[in-house]
């Protein structure tokens, strides 16, 4: 039976990109639909009435919402290739722990870096680097967070890796000197085929970041 897979998404979204990467890692054919977040489609409002947010994966008519929920669903449905999560329950819990950490301790300051200035931004930069350093310790000398293979935590972080340049330019700072090991892993992730096909041009993200920064800071 042919699967119908639709992804409601927004091109610069670090959350949407996770779903795109996961689908491509699994070789799943899907229809990408760009949402205008200032004028949300009836389909988005119908498929995610609670949050009205992207990404939404619609698999044979049934919606799955929230990026890491989507990634986990993709891993469980298309389980025959490229596992994104370990099969061991404890290692799965550890991977999910780090993704929860990323989506709170990295997300909150990252959000403030491009949308604020002055003291608030300085504090956010500090917290952002602190969180990245904790992640760098967790990464250790592994190629990827999952070990030798690209997986769940790497997919989660790639959403932030794609915004590194924009964050650095908005905040006028540099991440590599602070977290060289994490940066090396980031570069490996950004070279992966599924990632290259899923990411927008980094310059366009910088342009987008400055555009919304004007809206927030003026």
């Amino acid at each position, binding site marked *: 039976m042919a699967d119908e897979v639709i992804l409601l998404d927004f091109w610069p979204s670090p959350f949407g990109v996770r779903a795109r990467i996961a689908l491509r890692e699994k070789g799943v054919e899907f229809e990408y639909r760009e949402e205008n977040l200032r004028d949300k489609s009836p389909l988005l409002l119908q498929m995610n009435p609670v949050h009205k947010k992207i990404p939404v994966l619609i698999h044979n008519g049934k919606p799955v919402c929230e990026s890491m929920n989507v990634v986990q669903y993709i891993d469980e449905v298309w389980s025959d290739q490229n596992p994104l999560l370990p099969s061991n329950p404890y290692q799965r819990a550890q991977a999910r722990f780090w993704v929860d*950490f990323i989506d709170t301790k990295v997300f909150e300051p990252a959000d403030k870096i491009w949308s604020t200035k002055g003291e608030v931004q300085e504090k956010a930069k500090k917290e952002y680097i602190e969180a990245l350093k904790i992640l760098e310790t967790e990464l250790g000398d592994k190629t990827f967070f999952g070990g030798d293979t690209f997986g769940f935590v790497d997919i989660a972080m790639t959403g932030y890796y794609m915004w590194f340049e924009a964050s650095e330019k908005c905040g006028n700072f540099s991440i590599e000197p602070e977290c060289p090991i994490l940066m090396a892993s980031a570069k490996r992730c950004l070279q992966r085929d599924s990632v290259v096909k899923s990411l927008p041009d980094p310059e366009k993200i910088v342009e987008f970041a400055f555009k919304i920064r004007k809206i927030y800071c003026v």
Partner: protein
Amino acid sequence: MAAEGKVKLLGCWASPFSRRVEMALKLKNIPYEYLEEALPNKSPLLLELNPVHKKVPVLVHNDKILPESHLILEYIDQTWKNNPILPLDPYEKAMARFWAKFVDEQILTVGFRSLVKAEKGRDVAIEEAREMFAFLEKEVTGKNYFGGKTIGFVDMVAGSIIPFCLAQLWEGMRIDVIPEEKFPELNRWIKNLKDIESVRECIPDREKQIEHMMKVSERYRSA
């Protein structure tokens, strides 16, 4: 087949997050040693076991340390296969995870934080809370439990927070956020929950919980 080894749970009597883990352990008949954290003081053990977040609950299974209630519940479910908590079907599982997150984020916000701060006044806060609860009302309609015929992941998450934590806050504030005439299905679900032994054993003393929630809300309001 039961998993081997010793299980310890670091928790707090007043925490719905630790109580939901106890519900799961009891449902699956897993013997465990319970260690009470005298919060808000944090013991050296807690700081050692959960250095990143310094929060309860923390489950220790042999040499494995697991923080965060949702992760603990899933770990328990994958390790002890009797009385499953999560559905097998990937879509149903994704929905369960979605609703559990909705409870711990949106419901906790409207049911506690926004109500206590009541920036636009208490009546507006109650109405906004009811808009969120309406989603849960719809989700449990026609079912005994969120999990269907038996309790599951969402029942434990929502069950530890709504009837045995938020309801005591509301009682202390003398308000009824989910009255039976507006939320018949959620109220029916709460009655059904109390039929389950592993849930009943995890219900804290009502008066103690009201007193505790009043203290917590005062701390939150003045923060």
